[in-house]
């Protein structure tokens, strides 16, 4: 291994800074151990600090034009990884804001600490170029998440969520690890790109190759909540603290996709003929099943959970195509989806503080109780449904365009018809918010400052993505170009 250069340090600047921030949070938590009200300030610190990290990384840590393997081949310093990192850090900042005024969450230093550690893990997931590094990154992401999902120790549903997530995670992780070991055992290398070479030269027989690909996909499917590894999603989202569910459904899912895209396209390009079709089938089932079950939901968090499964299906459509436009659409979709779904969960957290319930009946007449919150909900749900001028529309168009371009017209039709089903259940929620009356109409739903700030930022972001999409597209297509 060569000497450490400044590029190598700058490449992991975001992670280093996040670690510093995490240390600061831990320290202040200890200092303020008696001052509960002050500890709420840790939320501002985490959010503001993350945004500062984001800014500094954009200034100093961007990879420029090069795609190089660094740290002895453990990480790959490229645009796609960098774009994903920025997305995760932004997601963490917003999640911190959402958590601040949640009872039992916002004034606990360890919450922010775990959030930041998990974000570091995601950053590493998006850039790892080695099986071992990849596995470590996935676990660094997941273990704090298991704790966060079960954060409310007194609440049975939350502990159940944490436990369920842990069991599912551990199990799929083990299967994935078995896949990794097969790959290593037959080739003797662990680098993702070295593996690609070995596969091309035919070091593995095709049976083993397909088997190991399938095993690896199990682990990734769990992360992105694709069918048939989606069973944990509704229960975990419902039971976990809502800000955590929001983070799980967006940043964690995006991290899964970052890994999936890199491994499929970096390590297994030789098999693209096989996995394209497989992913196409998984995508079809995932979106159809997610949407179909979402129709029957009465709880807003479960509804969002099934909708998030369906969205994983749409995003997989972009993966199927194995083209630059496809990867661009995946990255664009994930950015739009992160903003949108965080906004949806943000409204749920903010509303829950007054409504005290996540049942959909509780949302009756929300627009009379808090017009602003209702409007944020409208923006978020319409963007999820894929309506212009919101980000979700452009994201969907790009994904389906990639499918048509790659000759998957049938998949594009499956996708658009599914989006109709999606529209239906989002409208059902909006109907409650705008149309139905409730007995508590005179009780306003106050929205505290962190929520106001976060929701305004997200809503504006959703509209910017949807109406002025050229700069974002340039960014994401640059990211996609870095992969090929």
């Amino acid at each position, binding site marked *: 291994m060569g000497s450490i250069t400044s590029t190598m340090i700058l490449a992991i600047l975001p992670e280093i800074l996040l670690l510093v921030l995490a240390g600061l949070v831990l320290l202040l938590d200890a200092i303020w151990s008696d001052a509960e009200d002050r500890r709420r300030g840790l939320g501002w610190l985490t959010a503001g600090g993350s945004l500062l990290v984001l800014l500094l990384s954009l200034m100093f840590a961007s990879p420029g034009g090069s795609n190089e393997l660094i740290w002895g081949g453990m990480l790959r310093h490229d645009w796609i990884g960098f774009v994903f990192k920025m997305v995760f850090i932004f997601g963490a900042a917003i999640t911190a804001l959402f958590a601040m005024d949640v009872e039992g969450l916002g004034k606990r230093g360890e919450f922010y600490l775990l959030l930041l550690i998990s974000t570091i893990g995601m950053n590493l997931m998006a850039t790892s170029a080695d099986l071992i590094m990849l596995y470590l990154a996935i676990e660094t992401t997941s273990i704090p998440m298991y704790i966060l999902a079960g954060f409310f120790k007194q609440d049975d549903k939350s502990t159940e969520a944490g436990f369920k997530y842990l069991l599912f995670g551990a199990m799929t992780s083990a299967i994935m690890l078995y896949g990794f070991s097969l790959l290593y055992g037959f080739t003797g290398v662990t680098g993702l790109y070295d593996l690609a070479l070995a596969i091309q030269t035919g070091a593995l027989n095709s049976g083993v190759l397909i088997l190991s690909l399938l095993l690896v996909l199990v682990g990734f499917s769990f992360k992105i909540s694709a069918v048939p590894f989606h069973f944990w999603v509704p229960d975990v989202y419902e039971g976990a603290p809502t800000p955590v569910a929001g983070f799980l459904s967006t940043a964690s899912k995006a991290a899964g996709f970052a890994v999936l895209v890199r491994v499929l396209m970096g390590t297994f390009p030789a098999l693209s003929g096989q996995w394209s079709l497989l992913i196409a089938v998984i995508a079809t089932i995932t979106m159809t099943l997610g949407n179909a079950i979402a129709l029957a939901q009465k709880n807003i968090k479960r509804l969002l959970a099934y909708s998030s499964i369906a969205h994983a299906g749409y995003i997989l459509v972009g993966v199927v195509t194995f083209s630059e436009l496809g990867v661009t659409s995946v990255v664009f979709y994930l950015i739009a989806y992160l903003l949108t779904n965080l906004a949806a969960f943000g409204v749920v957290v903010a509303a829950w503080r007054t409504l005290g319930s996540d049942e959909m009946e509780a949302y009756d007449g929300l627009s009379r109780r808090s017009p602003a919150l209702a409007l944020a909900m409208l923006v978020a749900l319409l963007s999820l449904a894929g*309506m*212009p001028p919101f980000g979700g529309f452009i994201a969907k*168009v790009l994904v389906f365009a990639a499918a048509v371009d790659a000759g998957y017209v049938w998949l594009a039709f499956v996708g658009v018809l599914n989006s109709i089903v999606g*529209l239906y259940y989002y409208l059902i929620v909006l109907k409650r918010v705008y*149309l139905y009356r409730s007995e508590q109409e005179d009780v306003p739903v106050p929205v505290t400052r962190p929520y106001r700030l976060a929701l305004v930022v997200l809503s504006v972001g959703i509209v910017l993505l949807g109406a002025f999409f050229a700069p974002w597209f340039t960014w994401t297509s640059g990211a996609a170009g870095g992969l090929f």
Partner: protein
Amino acid sequence: MQFPIISVIVFTPIITGLLIFLLPGERKTEIRVTALAAAAFALALSIWMYFSYDTAAGGYQFVEKYNWLPQLGISYYVGVDGMNTPLVLLTGVVMFTGVLISWGIDDRPREFFGFLFILATGVFGVFVALDMFMLFFFYEIAVFPMYLLIAIWGWKVTREYAAMKLTLYLFIGSVISLVGGLAMFFASGMGTFDMIALEGAGFSLAFQKFWFPFVFLGFAVLGGIWPFHNWSPDGHVAAPTAVSMFHAGVLMKLGAFAALRVGIMLLPEGAKFWMPWIILLTIVNVVYGAFIAMVQTDFKYVIGFSSVSHMGLVAMGFATLNREGMIGAGVQMFSHGVMTALFFAVVGMIYDRAHTREIPELGGFAKKMPIVAIAFVVGGLVSMGMPGFSGFVAEFPIFMGVWKYRPWIAVVSGISIVITASYIIRIITNVFFGKMPEHFEKGDDHHEPIDDVIALDKVALVLLAGILIAVGIFPSLMVPMVETGVENILRLLGGA
């Protein structure tokens, strides 16, 4: 640089809509005045644009083009020709009169006008779009607010059902067309969504035959084509008055126009191949729509089905693919838009006072509200295609065009004129004349006595009726303009 008049027209409503959202909800008068001012401004600009369109020169005018997403050849590209200039004017008229008529909305007027204006921007955007992506973008902006407008402010009995049905129908149509649009984009190999460029893409015959039905029918759903018209009467009836006006008056034209612009103009060979079948569908529209309208007892359903019938004539005119039919269809889009806006305005005014729309329960309204009665009679005469009114200018050429294609179709469709006359006359007799029921005349425990409409309503009705008469008496105001647009389409069809 010339004044970007089209962009100003397109974005005035949505910017006003967003401003309205910033006003406090209780300041209802300010909200209404703001809305009216913006609508008047948009109307004035669209009138100005209409009269400064140079018919002698023809082609696309007032063109503006800016890059939106150059990597995929998406641009903000707008311009008007003889086909869509009248439609922009129509939208301006309906928006203005719609605001006038909605003065009395008291439940959350801020949200009402906000959503209505977002919708208006979508409509303007589709009519002026010369970029296919932009067309889809604005198309969906136009479709969605309908849901909330109907579901929140609509007729309590059917609003939830009708709003959902409408939204899903239209959205399915639009996404199916969207896939077709994407297929065109990639098949052209030109890397652009510019529709004028795509007109010269030279798609293969097989490609055109395959994709034409998807693209055309996807949009034609919004034009109310049979058998996908089902959402439309339910939607019209459930919607609040201004939304019905917008909906039947403008939105259905959006479907017909987009089907023409993307379907027929970009896939002309596909259009030629499928047209016999499309004509068959439209015959059902025209005749069946009229028959169903005749047997309705609910005033608003009569008008709703009459829209299905008249929009069938528009599609039929396009489907003839000849000069007469297309010119007629072009004028019919405008004429029917104004007429049906007038009808729905009248229905709304009567229902607001009588609280029923059952025709047998009404009567004698001409005495109480003479202007309304006169306006309705004007609309009725337009609907029947009486010479001297815009309906004649529109429908006569359509029948000529159809006759040129197949005389029997013209004869069969002609039945609709007779039926239209029957239901219009029935309404005029039973609603406006005859004896007014006692409880309307004097009032009882449940009713105030019926009084005349307010001045703003009268302004709206006089404006709408005046336009119908003006176009009827001076067809030269519109026909030559539409003709220049039709020339362009015929050129694409290879002079058929």
